[in-house]
C-alpha cells in the first residue's frame, strides 16, 4: 500500500486528555496529530493502527451502504445457482442452504451459517443506515451508542467474503459431476461483498462517537 505511516508523538504527563489516544493493543499513549488524506497513524511501540484520515466518511459510507442494502435484497430473493444432472434441475437461494440444514437436524450448523451469512450482514447494514441517516441530517439517532456498539460487534461475524470462497469451492467440487449455472443472486452477492468491504473501509467510527459529544 502506498500509504505513509505516521507515528504520533508519545506523550508526557502534561498533555490534556482530549489530544491523546491510547493504543488498543499495548496501551501506550500518543498525542494525536493531524493526518493527511490516506495516511494512518500507527503505534510507535507495537505497530497497531491507531487512527486513519478518511475523507467524506459520512457521505461515502451512507451511499455505499444504501447500495449494499439493494444488492442484499437481490442476493437473497433470486436463485443463487442451479445444478443440472441427468435432466433434473435444482435451484437454491442463500436461504435454502440454511433451511435445508435445519430440516436435516443440523440446528447448530444452520444457526451459525444463517447468522454469519444472512443475519449479521443484514443487521450490520441496517444498523449503519440507522446511525448514518439521522447524522447526515444533523440529528442524533435514538440510542446511538447502543446501536453502534452492536454494529461494531457484528462486523467480524458478517462473513460474506468467506461465504463467496465457500461457494467457489462448492462449484469446483460439483463441476465434475454436473452443470452449474450461476444466477442473478450470485452476481448481486459479489457486488454486495465488495460494497460492504468498501463501507467498512470508509467508515470513520471516531466521527460517529464524537457526534455523541456535540449533542445537547
Amino acid at each position, binding site marked *: 500500500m502506498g500509504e505513509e505511516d505516521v507515528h504520533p508523538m*508519545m*506523550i*508526557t*504527563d502534561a498533555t490534556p*486528555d482530549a489530544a*491523546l*489516544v*491510547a493504543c*488498543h*493493543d*499495548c*496501551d*501506550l*499513549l500518543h498525542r494525536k496529530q493531524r493526518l493527511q488524506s490516506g495516511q494512518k497513524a500507527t503505534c*510507535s*511501540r*507495537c*505497530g*497497531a493502527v491507531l487512527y486513519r484520515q478518511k475523507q467524506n466518511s459520512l457521505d461515502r459510507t451512507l451511499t455505499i451502504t444504501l447500495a449494499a442494502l439493494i444488492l442484499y435484497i437481490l442476493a437473497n430473493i433470486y436463485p*443463487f*445457482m442451479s*445444478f443440472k*444432472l*441427468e435432466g*433434473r434441475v435444482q435451484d*437454491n437461494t442463500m436461504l435454502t*442452504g*440454511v433451511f*435445508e*440444514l435445519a430440516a*436435516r437436524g*443440523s440446528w*447448530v*450448523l*444452520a444457526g*451459525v*451459517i444463517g447468522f*454469519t451469512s444472512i443475519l449479521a450482514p443484514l443487521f450490520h447494514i441496517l444498523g449503519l443506515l440507522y446511525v448514518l441517516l439521522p447524522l447526515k441530517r444533523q440529528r442524533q439517532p435514538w440510542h446511538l*451508542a447502543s446501536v*453502534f*456498539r452492536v454494529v461494531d460487534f457484528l462486523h*467480524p*461475524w458478517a*462473513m460474506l467474503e*468467506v*461465504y463467496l*470462497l*465457500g*461457494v*467457489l*469451492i*462448492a462449484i*469446483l*467440487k*460439483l463441476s*465434475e*459431476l454436473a452443470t452449474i449455472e450461476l444466477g442473478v443472486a450470485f452476481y448481486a452477492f459479489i457486488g454486495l461483498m465488495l460494497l460492504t468491504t468498501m463501507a467498512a473501509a470508509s467508515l470513520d*467510527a471516531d466521527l460517529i*462517537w464524537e457526534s*455523541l459529544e456535540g449533542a445537547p
Partner: protein
Amino acid sequence: MSTTPTTAAKAALIRCHACEKLCRMRTLPARYQACCPRCGARVQQRKSNSLSRTWALVMTAAILYIPANTFPIMTVEFFGQPRHDTILSGVKALFESGQYPIAILVFFASIAVPMLKLLGLAYLLVSVQLRWKAQPRQRTVLYRVIEVVGRWSMIDMFMVSILVALVKLGAVATIEPGLGATAFAAVVVVTMFAASSFDPRLIWDDMEDETCQKT
C-alpha cells in the same frame, strides 16, 4: 514535567473499549460501576478475567477440535454409494484432483488456521502467565493475525451448506451434513470468542519501564 512516554494505565487513564475515549480514573464508592462519560459503556482497565476466560474457551475449542476432524463433515451419496468426507479427506481429494491453488487455500483455512489459533492463543496465554519479556511486538502481531484470520475457517462449512441445498436429487445424488461440520463450526465460533477475550495489553503490562524508554 517528566519526558518519559507512558501508557494509559500509568497516566491514570482508561480507554473505553467501545468508543475509544480516554477516561480519567477516579475511585468510586463501593458497588458503583465505572461508565464511559461519552458512550455509557462500562469501562475497565483490562478485559475482565481475560486469562481464565480465554483458557476456558481455548480448552473447549481444543476438545471440539477432535470430533471436528474425526467425524465426517458430510456424507455424499452418489447412485446409492455413500462416501464420508472429513475435513482432511476433503483437502486430500482437492490435492489429488490437481486443484493446487484451491487445495492450498482450503488447507490453510481448514487445517492450518484452527491449529494456529489454538496453539497461538495457548502460547500467548503461557507467555503472559510466565511474564516472558521477549519479543512483545512479535507476540502482538501474532495476536492480530489470529484475530483477523479466524473467520476464514468457515469456508468448508459454507461449502457444506451450499452442497446440501443444491444436491438433493433423490436416488441419484444427495448430500447430508455430518456431525463433524457442527463440531467444526463450533470450533470456529469458540476460537473467535477466545481471541476477542484475550487482552494483548497484558503482553506489555510487565515490561513497560524498559520498552518505553527504548523507543
